């Protein structure tokens, strides 16, 4: 019985990971929106974009997981500094 899925389809785990990465990218962009200075915002957006694009082609699941953790840490740091700056 041959599988009817196309060759390039992702497995469930890969699909979920992809969704997670996109979610983190979206949250990152939303947090960057709250930065007060326009030049800082541009710099952070370019930094986030280049970081995500650089590792776009990684296929090793563990490596991807590590990168997701790193990205979440960066995001948390950014959110904490923004909260401190606001208070």
């Amino acid at each position, binding site marked *: 019985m041959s599988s009817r899925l196309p060759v390039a389809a992702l497995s469930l785990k890969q699909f979920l990971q992809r969704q997670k990465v996109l979610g983190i990218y*979206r949250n990152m962009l939303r947090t960057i929106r709250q930065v007060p200075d326009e030049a800082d915002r541009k710099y952070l957006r370019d930094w986030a974009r280049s970081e995500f694009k650089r590792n*776009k082609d990684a296929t090793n699941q563990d490596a991807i997981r590590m990168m997701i953790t790193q990205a979440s840490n960066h995001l948390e740091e950014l959110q904490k500094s923004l909260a401190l700056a606001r208070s």
Partner: protein
Amino acid sequence: MAARVLQQCVRSLARPSLRLCPVNLALRPAVAPTVTVHRLLSFAADSRRTRWLEQSRISSVGVFCRQYGDLPPLTIETIKDRVMYVLKLYDKINPEKLQTTSHFMKDLGLDSLDQVEIIMAMEDEFGFEIPDAEAEKLMTPEEIVQYIADKKDVYE
């Protein structure tokens, strides 16, 4: 003597409101404005009310129509124009190849990260948040226009 000073102050304040009156007369043909102004002048000259009371009365004479602030109403055409404008400003899209039916990934060669950026730009343009689940399904400008028209209750 105080009454005379007050009278002069009232006249100098009433003059700009008289200038406003003709505009409002054009909007609402009514004789009422001029009558109330005259009544007000005599009223101020007669009595010894507090100054801020007169000023507040005078300021209410000048404005006859209410003015609310709001954005211009959305139509499908304006939504489409704004969406295409934002897309043309995006640096990874070639503006000549862009059409309302061009698919971001298949026709324009963008990837999912670019699509996230595009949807964020749309959120900024229209001022409301698009949740993740629905954002990842929007793959052509036509779909974006439909989604926004849906959310903003724009029918035609």
